């Protein structure tokens, strides 16, 4: 059982055994290696079992139930429908809308939110009076729970008596309808997401920036590089790994976005802010079509999986070089 956890091990056994005959001196080392593997396997076992039970098994169950028409009530599903749920799903204009909203939010995050976070991070890296205070203030929204953030902003952006419209009123401007208007809801939602999450990205950029040796920027400055050129050719390339990871986290977050949307708009008005996770919840818990909801969760899972793998393969490749997960010695 121990040996099966390490695919490379069985093939190496004969060679090692042969080696033992030739050089009896290494027998102790080999025994130590085997013991090491046993120890690793035993340490892995509890985590692996929990991972299988709580992560792998539910995923497989979702794949299974997604091929049934099932209300989720009274025992296992019986009405097999094949890929019917999926064909229905891709003909559903609400779901196609979900994909579009996801794409818009991802694009806005990468183009607006992350550069903003980067800018503020670099600003807060300068010598600045009250720097620690600003860092704390900008990071604070990230600590709030999604639910509290959502409730807070439904109040601030309320079309009738909200703070935002009151302030606009002082300047003689007409209040917006924010979440209540189909054309502004997605942008308003993105505003809330930015407020909530930019602090997190700012902190990782800040950490990344502080990992860049001072000598490099100083050397560039001595060579006569302007501030912009230092940023463009020294800071930015060296921040690359951090930026790539933050883009990754931001996109995965946008694909799974649920809490904020559910509490603020429930996907409305008329589905114009609905995300995949909201549609899934709606079908699973309000319409009792658990089979169909499973199909949505499977599509979400596949999108996330394909994206994560492709991103690691093509974008994070250099950053992962030498990391333990690459198993350099196996190549």
């Amino acid at each position: 059982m121990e040996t099966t956890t390490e695919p490379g091990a069985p093939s190496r056994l004969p060679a090692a055994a042969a080696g033992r005959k030739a050089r009896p001196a290494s027998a102790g080392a080999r025994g130590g290696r085997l013991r090491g593997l046993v120890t690793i396997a035993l340490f892995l076992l509890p985590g692996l079992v929990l991972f299988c039970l709580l992560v792998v098994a539910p995923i497989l169950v979702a794949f299974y139930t997604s091929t049934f028409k099932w209300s989720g009530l009274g025992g296992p599903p019986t009405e097999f429908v094949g890929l019917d749920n999926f064909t229905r799903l891709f003909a559903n204009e609400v779901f196609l809308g979900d994909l579009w909203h996801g794409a818009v939010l991802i694009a806005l995050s990468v183009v607006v939110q992350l550069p903003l976070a980067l800018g503020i991070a670099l600003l807060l890296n300068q010598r600045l009076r009250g720097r620690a205070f600003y860092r704390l203030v900008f990071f604070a929204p990230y600590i709030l729970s999604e639910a509290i953030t959502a409730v807070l902003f439904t109040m601030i952006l309320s079309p009738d008596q909200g703070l935002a419209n009151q302030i606009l009123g002082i300047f003689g401007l007409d209040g917006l309808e924010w979440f209540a208007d189909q054309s502004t809801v997605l942008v308003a939602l993105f505003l809330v997401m930015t407020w909530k999450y930019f602090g997190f990205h700012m902190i990782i950029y800040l950490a990344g920036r502080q990992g860049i040796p001072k000598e490099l920027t100083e050397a560039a400055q001595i060579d006569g590089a302007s501030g912009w050129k230092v940023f463009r050719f020294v800071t930015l390339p060296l921040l690359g790994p951090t930026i790539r990871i933050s883009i990754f986290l931001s996109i995965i977050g946008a694909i799974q976005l649920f809490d904020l949307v559910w509490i603020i708009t429930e996907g409305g008005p008329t589905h114009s802010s609905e995300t995949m996770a909201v549609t899934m919840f709606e079908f699973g818990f309000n319409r009792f079509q658990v089979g169909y909801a499973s199909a949505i969760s499977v599509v979400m899972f596949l999108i996330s999986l394909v994206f994560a793998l492709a991103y690691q393969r093509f974008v994070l490749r250099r950053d992962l070089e030498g990391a333990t997960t690459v198993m350099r010695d196996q190549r």
Partner: protein
Amino acid sequence: MKSFRRSAALWAAAVLILGGCGGTGSDDGAGKSSAGAKVTVEFWNIATNEPLKTVFATAIKDFEAKHPNITIKNVPIENDAFKPKLTTTTQSGKAPDVFQTWGGGVLKQQADAGLVKDLTADTAWIGNFTDAALAAYQLDGKTYAIPHDIGMVGFWYNKSLFAKAGITEPPGTWAQFLDDVTKLKGAGVTPISLAGKAKWPGHYYWAYLAMRIGGLDALKQAGDSKDFTAPAFVQAGQSLKQLADLQPFQKGFLGAAYDTPDGEAATMGNGKAAMELMGQWAPSVQSSAGKGIGDDLGFFPFPTVDGGKGAVTEAFGGGGGFAIGATAPAEAVEFLKFLTDSTEHRKAVESGGVLPVLKGEDDAVKDPNLSVVAKNLSGATGFQLYLDQAYPPAVGQQVNDSVAELIAGTKTPEQITQAITETAKSE
């Protein structure tokens, strides 16, 4: 060896955690009475607010005092969280011993799955309740739950705002109603408050219009044939579109929730809108979410439509009741009987938390607004359950969704009848 022991301990912990997840159903699970022995009855309700919260707590104490061997485990769950929680529990193939239900399509699904007890045989008990109150729980000639509350939807209006617009009496027909909306707008008053985000308040308009145009039969027929493309439903959509085209709703209504400080009830309760179409609970929510408008508040039934088949005395609404889990002990029935007997239920009615469901209980209603509703209900010549409960859940939600799209102007009356039909056929 140490790692073995450690993993064993982790295993044990994992099993405990998983075991804990599955153990939320009834503890004994035996479907028989266990006379003398200690029995626990789990009671799932949505009474997280006063006055019902206290009414139930007191009732449980009284019941336990009379039956020392029975313990009632009171599990009050917030309304919106209740349905997902019950769904998760029933997925394990079990239902709580006594649990809140609204009847209709959801209860039917649960009954079909063998999760609830069939109470039809106890005719003496069922005979105590009014027909309107029982309607929601009687499916295919069988009774699956006992009513505890009943109510209906109608227009709640602000008398002083009506007077301001020069309207002397509530409208009796849809044409007069549209006329009054125009008058209110002309007087600078927001005619109607609506919670567009919540969707369900919008479906009341479409459902009532369909009832008034096609009659109760049209709704029943559509439910049976799964076809909502009949002219009555298209006309209902057209009439509702006429109203929406007048732009009668408050600013930002598409994003408004029902009971938040800037929601439908608060807008009405703060005197910023002249009307809302809402159930019997409207006055209490108006004064908890907003200030409440006191004596200015009035009630009129949904107007008739010229040439329509429905009568003004046909009511649209629903209530709340309790079903008993299929595996519940006999003591669960005993508890529910106690909760719905005339003395105990009268206390609940007197508290203002529920309306009469027992025959001859009308005089217990103290609140003047609720008393109007109770009178309308006892004089009702027909009763239609909320569509999102009468039909299977998916159809009900589609009705809510589609009507919201109609009101927002993104779908036509024909398109929504097609969308609803499509969902109904796929069920």
